[in-house]
């Protein structure tokens, strides 16, 4: 089977595809720690970062990844309001296509928008987060971090806690970890879990305590302010009391278990400060891994013909 041309979600990706991205990321990770953090791998290639949603972190991470590979990187931020005024996604994409990019990195508020684009362009499309659907590079950097810190990816027990229903991070993490035989548990108030959570290949746990029992990794998700005050969540205080992670609860996990968070964190809500800053926390490793993993993804999408990724 030929490897997928795009990275939209992990549909069509196998274990080996993921491992080859993670291995390339290891090489780029070393590059990121050199005094000169740049390789000529993608010289002459053009990458367009097309962001329909504000995202300083992910956009910066992709921009840095492209630049460290010596690609020409163009950032296009499209505010939601100007979209309403005129150009359709279809027209925007045709315009960009005419500029002959090699990769379009795309974030969009609508689930499936990168799939729509991928069907209409010749270049590769990398999903940098679509609606409440997928965020594959986040899942890859999480896997990279887990492999470094835990020492393996196979047969882990992972708990994901929080707003699963609206989380593209949770969906992609579950999809990727399933390739490695993980037992993925999810927990949170029922108002924030999808009705058919089992469709994601995960086990729904009734409480944070039961979800944490014996896990290797726990991923805490950010509670979005817009979920508050409606019918999903009465208060942050109550959420924190029932589904917030603190040092005592972390004791239920395996000794040395890893605590992850895609950021930005609400300290004192889903995660207590002592856990966020404690020895189990991998939050900053995740951020550092982000650039290396995205370099590996861009290399895979646009680096055809280039041999040794880190030395070329």
């Amino acid at each position, binding site marked *: 089977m030929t490897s997928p041309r795009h990275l939209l979600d992990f549909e069509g990706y196998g274990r080996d595809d993921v491992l080859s991205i993670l291995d390339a990321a290891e090489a780029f990770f070393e590059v990121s720690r050199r005094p000169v953090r740049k390789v000529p791998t993608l010289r002459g290639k053009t990458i367009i970062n097309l962001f329909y949603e504000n995202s300083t972190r992910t956009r910066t991470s992709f921009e840095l990844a492209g630049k460290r590979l010596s690609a020409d990187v163009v950032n296009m931020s499209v505010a939601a309001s100007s979209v309403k005024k005129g150009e359709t996604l279809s027209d925007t994409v045709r315009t960009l296509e005419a500029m002959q990019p090699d990769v379009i990195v795309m974030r969009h*508020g609508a*689930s499936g928008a990168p*799939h729509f684009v991928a069907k209409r362009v010749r270049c590769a499309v990398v999903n940098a987060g679509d609606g409440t659907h997928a965020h594959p590079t986040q899942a890859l950097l999480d896997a990279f971090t887990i492999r470094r810190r835990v020492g393996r990816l196979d047969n882990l027990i992972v708990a994901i806690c929080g707003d699963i229903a609206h989380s593209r991070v949770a969906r992609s993490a579950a999809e990727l970890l399933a390739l490695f035989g993980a037992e993925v548990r999810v927990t949170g108030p029922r108002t924030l879990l999808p009705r058919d959570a089992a469709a994601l290949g995960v086990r729904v746990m009734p409480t944070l305590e039961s979800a944490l029992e014996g896990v290797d990794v726990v991923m805490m998700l950010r509670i979005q302010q817009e979920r508050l005050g409606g019918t999903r969540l009465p208060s942050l205080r109550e959420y924190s009391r029932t589904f917030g992670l603190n040092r005592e609860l972390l004791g239920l996990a395996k000794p040395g278990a890893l605590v992850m968070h895609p950021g930005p964190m609400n300290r004192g809500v889903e995660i207590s400060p002592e856990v966020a800053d404690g020895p189990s926390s991998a939050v900053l490793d995740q951020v550092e891994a982000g650039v290396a993993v995205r370099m590996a993804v861009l290399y895979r999408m646009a680096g055809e013909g280039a041999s040794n990724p880190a030395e070329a």
Partner: protein
Amino acid sequence: MLVLHGGRVFDPRTGLDEIADVVIEAGRITRIGRGAADGLEGEQVERRDVSGKWVAPGFVDLHVHLREPGQEYKEDLASGLRAAVAGGFTTVCPMPNTRPVNDTRAITESMVAKAKSLGLARLLPFGAITRGLKGAELAEMADLRDAGAIGVSDDGRCVMNAAVMRRALEYARTFDLLVTQHCEDHHLTEGAQMHEGVVSARLGLRGWPREAEDVIVARDLLLAEATGARYHVAHISSMGAVRLIREAKSRGLRVSAEVTPHHLLYTEDAVLGYDTHCKVNPPLRTEEDREALRQALADGTIDCVATDHAPHSSLEKDCEFAAASVGINGLETAVPGLLELVRGGSLSPARLIESLTSSPSALLPDVEAGGLAVGGRADVAVIDPDLRWTVEPEALHSRCDNTPMLHHEVTGAIALTLVEGRVVHERPA
């Protein structure tokens, strides 16, 4: 004189299903029977050999959107009624969500007059239940009826307020108008993109739970029982609603339901890949729902098939899923779609014909349609059940091609359609 010679002739009212000739004179059927056309010859006799084909009453569609007035770039009466006859439909009932809304006599009158001048399918509109489809004040139903409306509906919107629905049922009953409800609790479907279930969880699309349909059906059945009105469920899609209708009918209530070909044919799986041609309201549901709908259509719990023909242009469909409009183009693909069920064994040919003809027409008591009787109006559809064709935009008469069948090869087509004895559609052999 027009002679349809040697076809398999169906009349669901009498149970007729045999090889016979049909003779038509001056817009009426004058003879039906084996050899009925024997000896009829001469210049005045126009003969069509329809052997191997099915001769049925012209179809009646209780639910279409023809977009005129207001959105003629999607469809207008001329293209929509042309599409209707190309699909075998000789009577169609457009919903009132035009722009402006068909909530007043003048709009109904102008639609009916224009349709008459076209001489294609007959147009029997639904007027609005409430002014502007806003769900608050009743529309002038007696005026609408006198202008030619056969029922009322706020289709596209559900009458959410139970007190308004109660009064609407009472008032409509005064004038014996059919009340068709679009059953959707809008609070339960806020932001919904597709059926809430396994596929919506995977695709990260906000779900439309089937209970949003069921709670309205349950409430309305209680109100229909209390008011004695004739109540009809539009585009039924959930197995729960089927169960409720079955129970209500077993107690003798004057209630009915229609189902669309797409809900009978597809499930939520069709949305995988974010195909906007499969975005529809109510949404495509699960295998279990589809099975319940098929069974209910076969056993008569669901009275009839209605297409909910909802043309949308590429402006509404060539976009990201969340931005796409809901609706499937249905008039010209209904027969090939339903024939798939016949070939699959879940629908008999006789019930297929009935659900497109006498069953819907029984819900319009003062309209002559849905039968093939000597002396009756010669509205006829001739089906070629074996003809294979590909659903390409050029093959459709509708102005739009928003159907999941687009570019697919299908089996079954309408060979010939007559309205009052006139040939209004004939497929080149």
